[in-house]
């Protein structure tokens, strides 16, 4: 289970430490705005693309639009 982060300063700390950021929204939303350095793997493609695009030795932080 992923560890839930509620505090954005924790997110900023992880980004500074080189976490792999993954936005799981669709490509159009990603193109408009995404966190600096994030890559886009839409949720429905996560199974197929995660192994190809993510470094298994580094931590990963995923996000979508909000908590809903």
């Amino acid at each position: 289970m992923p560890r839930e982060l509620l505090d954005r300063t924790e997110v900023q700390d992880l980004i500074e430490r080189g976490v792999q950021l993954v936005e799981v929204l669709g490509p159009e939303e990603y193109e408009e705005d995404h966190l600096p350095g994030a890559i886009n793997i839409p949720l429905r493609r996560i199974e197929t693309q995660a192994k190809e695009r993510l470094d298994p030795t580094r931590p990963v932080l995923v996000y979508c639009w909000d908590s809903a």
Partner: protein
Amino acid sequence: MYDYVHGKADWLAAGLPTDGTNAQRPNARDVARTDVPTCRLDEQLGAVRARVREAGWDACVVVNEERVVFGLLRERELNASHDDDEPIEHVMRPGPSTFRPNVAIEEMAAFMTEHDLVSSPITSSDGRLIGLLRRDDAVRVALEAHGHGHHEDEER
């Protein structure tokens, strides 16, 4: 593996930097004036009025020690015929509408014009002041951005 629970909405509302096409377009954070004077609820009107005028401003945002917005003093409140020792809490406009920093400047300009807002505090999602957006600035930048877009279209 981590899950940023509040997601992109939280990040944008905090006015934190982003990449993407919207990052190239001006928004409320880009245009808001961060040098707007601030004051506390328990300060006296006379002292605040003098400080605001000395700074060349006609508005002041009422905040607490964490810069959470409580009210606004516009020209109307600053010029009202209250005693100098009147506490700000009694003369301010309480609970003004605040806007998040990621709102597009065209949207802000249209809303402020439609609702006759001369200035609006821009705050993070937890209510902390980022700056004061003046309608004149919002309209000017929105028109510039629009004009620039037309120019690019004409060149194509």
